[in-house]
């Protein structure tokens, strides 16, 4: 297959998946019993003007989609309504304008709230992913290279244990430990730091990030170690490794030039598949450490029944994961020459 065609196909499917998520998101929130827009109108915290604003914004007086209600014979008459005036199109239209609604809790636009938080999540996941991949890959290489030695068994058991830890619980334990050792117990920065020089601000953020990132790294490192180990064990048993050895290459050259790239390929796939799971980890970590990210937003919106924020955060997370997945797919096609000619 042509490379261009491959790229287009992957991008096309990602767009389709995003569309699917948009539709899913809409229906989840309109059809499940919790119906936020309707429930939201009844929220006692809202002022009257706000209720009216919500009704207009979401078109709550309009049918959900064209003819949807017509399944009910009594409302058959509504069928002929202009599709652009249905709730679904109003929803899509709002999305395209970047409008995700107003938070019940803070009365601020959801989009603005999430925009601040997106970067914090990316910072946490980015740092955690990089660290866990690096540590996992290194552990995995040593475990496979020194197969069936104490190093191997140690790495294997450590990874299995790390994999088995519930993320939020590990976070709690580290928080418990950290707070006893003078580390900040939550948030991203100490209040009042904004007047300090930027170096101090950064050091402060770094201190706050330490425990969340450590939690993240421990939880995901296990899986990456296991995959790297088994994938490298497979590669090292391949015939081309024997060829390399017969060519007179030494152990270091064989690992560097023949084993690692091949062994990394399954890891890239797993990283891509795992992106959905990593968000789950971020959600729990942000909840424990009050990290002001998207996961934290989900946690808080659940606690406060703040549905517009929940809806917006879910949508944003889903789209981000889909895009990250696309990038991983494209990276893979670049690494493995066999993909394009499949």
């Amino acid at each position, binding site marked *: 297959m042509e490379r261009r065609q491959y790229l287009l196909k992957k991008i096309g499917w990602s767009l389709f998946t995003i569309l699917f998520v948009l539709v899913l998101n809409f229906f989840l929130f309109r059809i499940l019993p919790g119906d936020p827009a309707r429930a939201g109108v009844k929220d006692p915290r809202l002022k009257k003007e706000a209720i009216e604003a919500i009704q207009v914004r979401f078109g709550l007086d309009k049918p959900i989609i064209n003819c949807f209600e017509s399944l009910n014979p009594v409302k058959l008459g509504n069928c002929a309504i202009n599709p652009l005036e249905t709730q679904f199109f109003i929803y899509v239209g709002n999305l395209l304008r970047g409008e995700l609604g107003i938070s019940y809790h803070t009365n601020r636009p959801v989009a603005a709230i999430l925009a601040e938080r997106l970067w914090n999540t990316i910072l946490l996941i980015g740092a955690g992913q990089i660290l866990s991949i690096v540590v996992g890959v290194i552990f995995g290489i040593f475990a496979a290279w020194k197969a069936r030695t104490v190093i191997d068994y140690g790495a294997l058991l450590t990874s299995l244990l790390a994999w088995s830890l519930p993320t*939020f619980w590990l976070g709690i334990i580290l928080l418990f430990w950290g707070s006893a050792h003078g580390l900040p117990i939550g948030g991203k920065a100490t209040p009042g730091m904004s007047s300090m020089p930027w170096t101090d601000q950064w050091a402060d953020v770094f201190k706050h990030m330490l425990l969340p990132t450590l939690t993240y790294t421990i939880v995901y490192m296990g899986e990456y170690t296991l995959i790297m180990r088994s994938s490298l064990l497979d590669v090292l048993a391949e015939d081309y490794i024997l060829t390399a050895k017969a*060519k007179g290459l030494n152990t270091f050259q064989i690992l560097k030039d023949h084993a690692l790239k091949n062994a990394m390929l399954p890891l890239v796939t797993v990283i891509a598949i795992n992106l959905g799971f990593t968000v789950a980890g971020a959600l729990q970590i942000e909840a424990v450490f009050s990290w002001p990210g998207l996961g934290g937003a989900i946690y808080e919106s659940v606690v406060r029944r703040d549905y517009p924020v929940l809806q917006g955060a879910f949508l944003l997370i889903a789209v981000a994961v889909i895009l990250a997945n696309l990038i991983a797919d494209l990276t893979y096609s670049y690494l*493995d*020459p066999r993909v394009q000619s499949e």
Partner: protein
Amino acid sequence: MSAITESSKSKTQSTSPLLTFWRTFRRNPMALVGLIMLVIILLLAVFARQLAPYDVTSSANVSTADIYNPPGGAHLLGTDDAGKDVLSNFFFGARVSLIVGFFAAFISVFIGGVIGIVAGFYGGRVENILMRFTDIMLVIPDLPLMVVIVALTKPSLINIIFVIGLLGWTTTARIVRSQTLAVKSRKFVLRARAIGAGNFHIILHHILPLVMPLLVVNAILVISLAILNESALSFIGLGDPTALSWGQMLNFAFGRGAMSAGAWWALMVPGLGIVWVVLALTLLGHGLEQVLNPRLEFHHLEPGLPVVQDEARQAVARAEDGRPILLEVQNLSVNYVTAAKPPARAVENVSFQLREGELMGLVGESGCGKTTLMLALLRLLPPAGQIVGGKVWFMGQDLTAMDETELQNVRWNGISIVFQGAMNAFNPVRTVGEQIFEAIQKHTPILPGDKIEDRVSELLELVGISAEHKAHFPHQYSGGMRQRAMIAMALACNPSVVIADEPTTALDVMIQAQILELLDSLRKKLGLSIIFVTHDLGVVAEMCDSVLVMYGGVTAEYASVDTVYNAPRHPYTQELLKAFPDLSKLDKRLASIPGYPPRFDQLPPGCRFAPRCPQAVARCHEEQPALHRLEGKHVASCHLLET
């Protein structure tokens, strides 16, 4: 017709399910530990009512003094935020967590299994639609979606089970589909179709039994994920308020001041419960996967066993005809050493001499030790292989006494190998040119890069591949071209000896002939000495100067090609020649050698060929024959040659 009397040892291998179960776990301590851990927690959950010291359902008799009491005294593991006994809560919490885990996993595995098998088996549009849907569901982050759904519905146990179950099937579907595809492509499914079996019969009798083990391992993983997801949902505050799971316990403790109260027990106990169960499942799953999918016992970078040094002997420098001897193997023996079994004697007491420009054929059936012998020459044996005797002399140097660095200089530079099945002998993610380049660079590092590039092109042209193909990857080559490229790579450093290990097996007859012709012309052009390893007697007759016939790890016969074909003395050589189809004798019925070659771990006490030998006498079954020197350099190992 032949009498088949192969290893009657395994005659009555009982395969009752219970025994299979026991064997599986005995072989894998990891799985056994996991199983025991799981059984313990299951028992605790089942007998929670009997084991729990307090009735945690009643909220009577709780005062503020009972809140967050440390472990000890009346409460073995302390009390929680509501003054309840943590230990009792722990037992009942196990019930909730396990119920959610098992039921949700059952739903997931069922859906995933059905989708995977249907997609994999029927293929086409059905597969396309199902797998696209699976891919979409896989990308959507599941925990946030679960949170959204549970938040919008009632957080009851049933709802939680269904939400986790209905969203957790994607990995199962993918794994089952790929396994179904793999099983479906196997020949026994085609055979089942050929006997007239319908789809349902095939799925039930041929697909499912082979997908099942994988499904079980996957189910174990899915259970542990479900338990983790349930605890995360509960922790976020979306647990069933009426059923106190471990996650719920943590939620209450974390949310209601256990941290500030220093009540570590309220946080540790339920958390360790989750870790215990998930670790048990992980160990079990990982252990079972190893049983299911046993990896090769070794890899190529593990340190090998030390060579057992023989007393020094002198190498012969020149053959009787005055040509220099490049490679001399003296009484080489190789064992495969395993901890459990006695060592397998894969090569025993093999000697030969390779002169300059000579083409020697090494013939034998599969598993007769030919490849082991060749790998032993360059000390490339797998880690369990050990040279237990003999010497290998290459141009006056003793290869068995060299250290790894010295060996690296001899490899490819002095002796190179054309491997069997060149598909796997090339690294699939690097271009063919790069891989040849690398060999030259390793051994002549002073050569500038563009000179090496020129040499790579020259080598490819030499074997009949145009130089522009050097930028291509191995999978872009056809089988014949890959084998040619492999030969080009073997010639990269101008070696004096080339070992060709079954270079034409699995190639078409015409391509096979092309490769043989190429090797023969290169030998003449470059004055190479070649050891040609093959199971094909015809090929050897066509091109070799001398032949070493191996049987069961020992030399059966070693002589010039003319002697071996026209005056063979060993019964094995004689029988093998009779079994070879000969177009000039079309009317004759093919002779066959009844029986099968011996296994190295079950070698007969006497001559290794005796069980199949038509001329065997009593002595052949008792005593190993020595190598007898016949006229000239002709040797054969047979008792019948003694007189």
